[in-house]
């Protein structure tokens, strides 16, 4: 998964919505761990479209 740091508002919407608990929000950075199975829910949840899936446009 690719996060646009220019678009991300660090709101945590993707974190709470992730079925795998694979996303972690530090004070300012969004991190994906190996639990991510590319289900794409975070892509849809993100209110500003900051997350994209590698290999997909």
């Amino acid at each position, binding site marked *: 998964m690719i996060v646009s740091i220019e*678009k991300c*508002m*660090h*709101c*945590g*919407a993707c*974190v*709470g*919505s*992730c*079925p795998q*608990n694979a996303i*972690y*929000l*530090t*004070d300012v950075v969004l991190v994906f761990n190996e639990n991510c199975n590319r289900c794409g*829910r975070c*892509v*849809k*949840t*993100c*209110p*500003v*479209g*900051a*997350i*994209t899936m590698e290999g997909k446009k």
Partner: protein
Amino acid sequence: MKTLKYDIVVVGAGPAGSMTARNAAKGGANVLMIEKRQEIGSSLRCAEGISHKGIEKVGLKIDRKWVSTEVSGAKIVSPGGKVLKIDEKNAGNEVGMVLERHLFDKFVAMEAARAGADIMVKTSALDVIKENGVVKGVKAISYGEPVRIEAGCVVSADGYESQVARWAGIETVQKPSDITSCFQYRLTNIKHEQDFCEFIIGSIAPGGYVWIFPKGGDTANVGIGVLLSKLKKPGEVKMYLDKFIKSDSRLNCGQPVEAIAGAVSVSPPLDKTIMDGLMIVGDAARVIDPITGGGIANGLCTGMHAGNVLAKCAQAKDFTESVMQEYEDLWRAEMENRLWRNWMAKEKFLTLSDETLDSVINTIGEVGVEKVTVHNLLLAIKERHPELVKEFEDLL
């Protein structure tokens, strides 16, 4: 590694976490509250509306320093422009006043500190410590340094993101039809009605609504929530709001001074909010009202009960589920039926067309509603559209 020992560690310094820390510390417990952000109450993720009752019920004294604006009622606008205006001074949970959350959250945290709780900011929980399957504390990072915090009870007050409970083994994730994705501007130089919180429903915000909450003078929080199951494209939530603002002549002259995003749960509450060594409060416990998306009052209320029960647990040095059951019983008695009823109402309303919503708003106006509460609105709907509330009329 640095190791700290407390009776209770609260993860998250929002209203629910601070209320828990305050009441537990007041009752004599040794409490630490950690907050990952460098500033409590920032950044904002909230439309900031609450009733007076929601604050007073938990024993906090209203201070004008953190009240932005008092409102005298609510306006609900249907897709076709039918307006239901409820003018009242004694509102329900959704209207009454609009807070300054960056000041309010600090105020409740200060109350916790004055009661004797310790606070650490810029300190993130990374995982729970478990021994023989029982939660015994959290691993955290504070100003870049790892720290081990051992505690009799960990309180998950980490909001919508809620990872602490999941690390401990309680599943808190919601289905897409129970998640609302939100975006909000603070708009200035606009011509909204300054005395009313406004809710605009219909297909302009599928499964949710647009809100205009006054922030004094020509400024307001203008935001939108859209149900995740109704979203199709990335970034659509902001697009829906931008489109609405552009189409509204009161708002399209405005300029933003802040933009925020976030998500809220619009689900029934968790089945279980305690386990040995763990308690869940506020948004993390999924106690946000599924109709309004309002969470401050319910969060404060769960925090109050959690703190009171934890003080007793600390005295008895017993943080097992059997002792903490009182917390579960207290908050459920207070709000569980209401949360389930409003969730069922939400499930029903998101199936309604714009035309039906027009007719519903119209007829509620004819019946008349004196006091803005979801309950009163549902009762008015029951009178004219009994078929819409049939599935949950026993909860009305």
